[in-house]
């Protein structure tokens, strides 16, 4: 077995010989962008292109319709009209023809002399692109061909470049790569009028891109029913120039990989130099292209294992590096010092879809930069089918799953797990990959693992068959109905919750669905029981209960669907009879919004069809309703709409809002007095500049949680991702039961916590599917804790004294005092009421209940010289010198 990297030197030298060290075209970065929406998924069964549609649409506000693209890996040979052998062995050339006339010339120059063509065709498309609303520029025609390099051509290529001994396939890969470079040079980057360029040339993979939104690609090229195992899509937000070329859109191709990117490099030029020194010349002037060139170089030319490539892209640093085993430290240190000038610097997040022909594996890979400056969510569903998803926003994941579940009952609209990667960390390396590998029976299996190969799994439980008819269980009348009715008649949400907590583990799916269904039936004729039922079902969503062999994702799905059904059957604001405590408004009836009358107290908003932002967003409706006198709101079936709770203004103490579904960015930002409950995970920028009030998140909070907050009390069941509580001042009081990825409470300025200032409690725990508490090995894994803070305090549950001084920069670890415990105890008690996490359990270490002082540690601010002294400025130095001269 020859190591791939053995030929690196020869490949690079011969490339330099052919293409030179200096770029043929002037290598100026002309395309500039920062923002994008990225999404991707990999499934063990082939999935139709239409399912990339929903997440793409849900992320329109991350692009501007000036560039969209998709990539797909792992096809059905029948749909392409070739044999499986051809599909797997041949290179699939996709060439965008901006000028249709150039095809004969192009073939003559770059195809016919070199390749045996097994099949060629012009990709089908809609007759008229204007049939697609919003698509303003005609997408390019695409010429597609399955090709192999002619043996004699390959032999000559090997001869000329000194590749003797190299496996033929490697040489063929290199030939295809260079041929595309030549083609692009001639037909794209060196001519005034761009004529054609290579979209992709890998095996069993393709890229298509246009000037438009990503879903337009699927529509225009009629890929709604075209199936693949891996799909990625990209919404681009270019801001320059009135004419855009599809060439600048993502994804970009390496050899067998397609990469989409959200972010911006600060060291683009240095990276280009690094590539040019290796005979590689960027042609499309974007940092995305450069990223995939780096990947291809390290992967195919240097033959690095994936872990090493990931390390070169996102180096491990600080405390995380210190925690690596010594031999890894040596390896990583070598990689970092060798490739540091090509390591992309700046906010970036990559999603890569690739085919690994050697093992017939299709792979979806997501990787974040070390500082985690771009949003990223991973998720996994493992049931009758398996799917892994990576997106910029959780709501886009939910949209994908909803779309898939609607088309195929084996999918679930709720994933089993959602999580974030911690960039450059010793825990996961900031990267996760989903491999779709062939199984012995001819089917495929999906596995998920992190940078270090540690698998991510979900508990093996029975998936729900949603198509199965729901029938009355035999023992319902005797064993369940009396209990259920007792709970319902009591109108006590806790009783309903308790019934499920004690019995749900024993029920099968049919019983569960039947019981939940009976609740809906009961409440439809017992309107005075609505409050109890809504609260009871909400508790079931918020808490985790033992479910036996059933999946929590299925349980969530069943309860959510019933809850939404109940809410949708409420009296509409347009109806004048049947008035009750609740009034329902949706997008169609939004103009009929009116003040509450009679006994009406709760405005229920069906958020489904509202716009993500702007005047048609339900957050605007909430403010209008508030002005009309409504104080209590339930917003459900959210699909990533933003700004809920914003705009109410000061002093809203009598307001309460409950959010269900995929809530969007900036929820509760700036609230002043109100109480807001997010049932499920929250997204990014939640509770920015929060002033007063209460926020409870029954899940994770996204990036920049409580940035610049001034006060308020918040409770988070799960984690807060990167950069929570940065620049928070005043008196915010926060309980985070999970942990934070990094930069927690940087520049915290919240006064003296014992005299009315603010603090953060970190419990460092997680829960299993059944709600059992598991304490994390490290309550706070990041390297930056409380950096440059000048006020406030952190209280960390750290009984094993894992937090070390190296993680602090301006803070000081001290023992907990009695005053501290008296301060935080009431908050932990309230935390218990919200999430059921008992204070006793928090104080229990290795089975023994301990004194709080032994369990919690405090991090307080110390006056840093840099914060209090006047730095010696150039001015003062200048002044002193001037005085000296004068004297």
């Amino acid at each position, binding site marked *: 077995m020859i190591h791939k990297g053995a030929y690196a030197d020869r490949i690079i030298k011969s490339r330099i010989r052919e293409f030179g060290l200096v770029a043929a075209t002037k290598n100026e970065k002309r395309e*500039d*962008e*920062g*923002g*994008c*929406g990225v999404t991707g998924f990999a499934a063990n069964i082939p999935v139709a292109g239409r399912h990339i549609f929903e997440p793409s649409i849900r992320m329109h*506000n*991350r*692009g*501007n319709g000036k560039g969209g693209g998709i990539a797909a890996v792992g096809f059905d040979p029948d749909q392409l009209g070739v044999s499986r052998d051809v599909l797997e062995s041949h290179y699939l050339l996709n060439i965008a023809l901006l000028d249709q006339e150039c095809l004969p010339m192009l073939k003559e120059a770059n195809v016919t002399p070199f390749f045996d063509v097994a099949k060629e065709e012009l990709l089908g498309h809609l007759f008229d692109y204007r049939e697609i609303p919003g698509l303003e520029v005609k997408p390019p025609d695409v010429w597609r061909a399955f090709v192999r390099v002619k043996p004699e051509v390959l032999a000559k290529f090997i001869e000329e470049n000194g590749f003797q001994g190299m496996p033929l396939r490697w040489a063929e890969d290199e030939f295809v790569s260079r041929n595309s470079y030549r083609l692009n040079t001639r037909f794209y980057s060196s001519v005034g009028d761009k004529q054609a360029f290579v979209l992709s040339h890998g095996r069993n993979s393709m890229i298509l891109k246009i000037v438009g939104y990503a879903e337009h690609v699927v529509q225009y090229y009629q890929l709604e029913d075209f199936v693949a195992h891996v799909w990625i899509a990209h919404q681009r*937000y270019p*801001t*320059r120039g*009135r004419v855009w070329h599809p060439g600048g859109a993502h994804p970009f191709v390496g050899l067998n990989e397609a990469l989409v990117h*959200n972010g*911006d490099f600060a060291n683009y030029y240095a990276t280009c130099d690094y590539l040019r020194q290796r005979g590689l010349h960027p042609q499309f002037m974007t940092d995305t292209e450069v990223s995939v060139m780096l990947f291809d170089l390290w992967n195919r030319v240097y033959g690095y294992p994936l872990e090493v490539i990931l390390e070169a892209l996102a180096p491990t640093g600080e405390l995380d590096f210190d925690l690596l085993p010594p031999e890894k430290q040596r390896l990583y240190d070598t990689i970092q010092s060798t490739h540091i000038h090509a390591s992309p610097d700046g*906010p970036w997040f990559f999603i890569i879809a690739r085919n690994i022909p050697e093992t017939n594996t299709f792979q979806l890979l997501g990787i974040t930069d070390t500082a985690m*400056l*771009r949003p990223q969510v991973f998720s996994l569903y493992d049931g009758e089918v398996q799917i892994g998803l990576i997106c910029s926003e959780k709501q886009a994941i939910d949209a994908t799953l909803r779309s898939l579940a609607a088309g195929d009952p084996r999918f679930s609209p709720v994933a089993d797990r959602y999580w974030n990667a911690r960039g450059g960390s010793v825990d996961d390396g900031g990267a996760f990959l989903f491999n779709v590998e062939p199984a012995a029976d001819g089917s495929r299996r999906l596995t998920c693992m992190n940078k270090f190969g540690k698998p991510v799994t979900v508990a093996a439980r029975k998936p729900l068959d949603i198509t199965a008819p729901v029938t009355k269980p035999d023992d319902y009348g005797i064993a369940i109905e009396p209990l259920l009715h007792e709970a319902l008649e009591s109108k006590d949400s806790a009783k309903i919750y308790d019934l499920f907590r004690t019995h749900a583990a024993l029920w099968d799916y049919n019983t569960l669905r039947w019981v939940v269904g009976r609740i809906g039936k009961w409440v439809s004729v017992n309107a005075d029981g609505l409050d109890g039922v809504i609260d009871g079902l909400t508790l079931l969503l918020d808490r985790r209960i033992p479910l036996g062999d059933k999946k929590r994702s299925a349980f969530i799905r069943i309860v959510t669907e019933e809850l939404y059904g109940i809410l949708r059957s409420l009296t509409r604001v347009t109806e004048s009879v049947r008035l009750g405590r609740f009034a329902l408004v949706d997008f169609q009836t939004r103009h009929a919004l009116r003040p509450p009358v009679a006994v009406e107290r709760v405005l229920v908003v069906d958020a489904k069809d509202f716009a993500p*932002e*702007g*005047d048609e*967003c339900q*957050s*605007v409706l909430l403010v209008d309703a508030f002005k009309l006198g409504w104080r209590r709101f339930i917003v459900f079936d959210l699909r990533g709409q*933003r700004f809920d709770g*914003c*705009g109410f*203004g*000061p002093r809203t103490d009598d307001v309460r809002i409950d959010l269900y579904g995929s809530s969007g*960015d*900036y929820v509760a930002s*700036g609230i*002043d007095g109100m109480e807001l409950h997010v049932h499920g995970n929250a997204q990014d*920028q939640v509770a*920015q*500049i929060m*002033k007063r009030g209460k926020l409870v998140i029954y899940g994770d909070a996204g*990036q*920049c949680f409580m*940035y*610049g907050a*001034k006060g308020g009390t918040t409770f988070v069941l799960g984690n807060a991702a990167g950069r929570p509580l*940065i*620049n928070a*001042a005043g008196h915010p009081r926060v309980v985070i039961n999970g942990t934070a990825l990094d930069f927690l409470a940087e*520049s915290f*300025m919240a*006064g003296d916590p014992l005299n009315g200032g603010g603090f953060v409690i970190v419990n460092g725990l997680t829960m299993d599917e059944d709600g059992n508490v598991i304490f994390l090995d490290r309550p706070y894994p990041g390297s930056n804790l409380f950096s*440059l803070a*000048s*006020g406030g305090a952190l209280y960390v549950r750290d009984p094993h004294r894992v937090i070390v001084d190296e993680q602090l920069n301006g803070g000081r670890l001290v023992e907990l005092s009695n005053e501290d415990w008296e301060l935080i105890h009431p908050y932990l008690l309230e935390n218990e009421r919200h999430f059921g996490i008992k204070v006793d359990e928090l104080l229990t270490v290795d089975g023994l209940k301990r004194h709080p002082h032994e369990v919690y540690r405090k991090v307080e601010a110390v006056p840093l010289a*840099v*914060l*209090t*002294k*006047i730095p010696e*400025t*150039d*001015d003062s130095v200048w002044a002193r010198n001037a005085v000296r001269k004068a004297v």
Partner: protein
Amino acid sequence: MHYKNVWNEVPRPEVVKTPSRFRRGMGKYAVMLSEACNNCLKCVAICPEKVFEERGGKLLPPHDHLCLGVECSLKSNRCARNCPTSAIRVGMNPSTRAMGDKRWTADLLMSTWYMAETGRLPKTDLEYRTGDSGGGFDKIRFRFPRRPPRPDLDKETIDTSITLNKRNDSRLKIDIGFPVYGGGMSFGSISQITMLSRIRAFAAMNSFTCTGEGGYPEALYPFDDYIITQVATGLFGVREETIQRVKIVEFKYAQGAKPGLGGHLLGDKVTEAVARIRETVPGSSLFSPFPFHSVYSVEDHKKHVDWIKAINPRCLISVKVSTPTDVDMVAVGSYYAGAHIVHLDGSYGGTGAAPDVAKKNIAMPIEYAISKVHNFLVNEGVRDEITLIVSGGIRTAFDIAKAIALGADGVVTGTSELVALECLRCHNCESGRGCARGIATTDRELTGLMDLEWGSRRIINMFLCWRAQLREILYRLGMSSVRELVGRTDVLAHLDYNKDVPDDDIRKPAE
């Protein structure tokens, strides 16, 4: 008669003579009296500029800053020649050699003080148009036609107003009375009296002032309709309430004086009052991070703009950025994100608090950035839908006019107002208790050096003089509105590239 509290009213835009608050105004020339003076008071009658004043039969120390200079004093009918005891001598004031810097020369400081006192251009030979930096606006001149092309224009009615919302959206339509509004200076970096003086003066001109990022002190509430509140990276003092009070909200992404460095207010200036407004700890330095932690790309930025729009459904959005080489990209990105105003902050501005290493060394000089952005937006076809405001070293009415001729709609100033309040440009804004003249300080004792009515009047006088100069410039160019001047680089000349550039002093009558 009821006691009337007037501090919260908008003053009338009229010139009220407002002399220096110090005993002797500083002038380019020093008028020296020898012991031979016998208090005959002949000089009081002779001097047309009222340099000499008597009180109770005794001559007061002369008002140097009104003196027209050595040549005047030596004329046969003027002071030096007619003093019976030859006690009067006029010479150059040696202090001027130590005062100011290349950008704000002693001449420029003193002419600004003169405008702030009298509302008129100085009669002396003070250079009131440009500094001596050897670049930027100091090398650019207006090329006035030999005769005013439209002598029929009435100078008094030449339109100096500009529109801040050019988008055809449902938000407020705002016109400001002259093409200037006040840049962000936070409470904490300057005193409340300084802040209010600026706000009242801009309000008098029917324009706006930005709060900076130090919060929104209650004393500002009467002027809500004339205030721009800033959402900057530290989010100090930013609340929904403050965002909803105002008509314009400004995002500060960077400052031209120190791009990439964020903001900082050193511990000594964080007094109890400052800490209360910012809800922080007294005595601890306050740092604004250099980026918005929630904004790392253009789609984040759009989301950010959408957020403020959701909080305040009527306000306009201004985006303040510095001038990197791809500033045109930033500007057009802001336009697509839904901003109404793009505010470019060039490299010449900034007070003493910006480190020298950053000042003038990082960002692109504003005169290049204006043209670059203006032309780019024109080519994109969106120039008519966005207001381009520039700042960073705009000192004089001539700077304003030059910036507009290069392509801006209007400008933002800051330092000039402080100079009107008798700032000396000593560059010690950030240190210790702050400003020796009680302008950029929050120290109670130092703040007491200035009174609000005096401060407001000084700045209004300067503005009225600026407006008159602008009108004179427009008149000489034959334009009836400042809006006609936008992008008219043809009326400008550059000393390095154009020959025979004429003098554009508007004190000399047009032919």
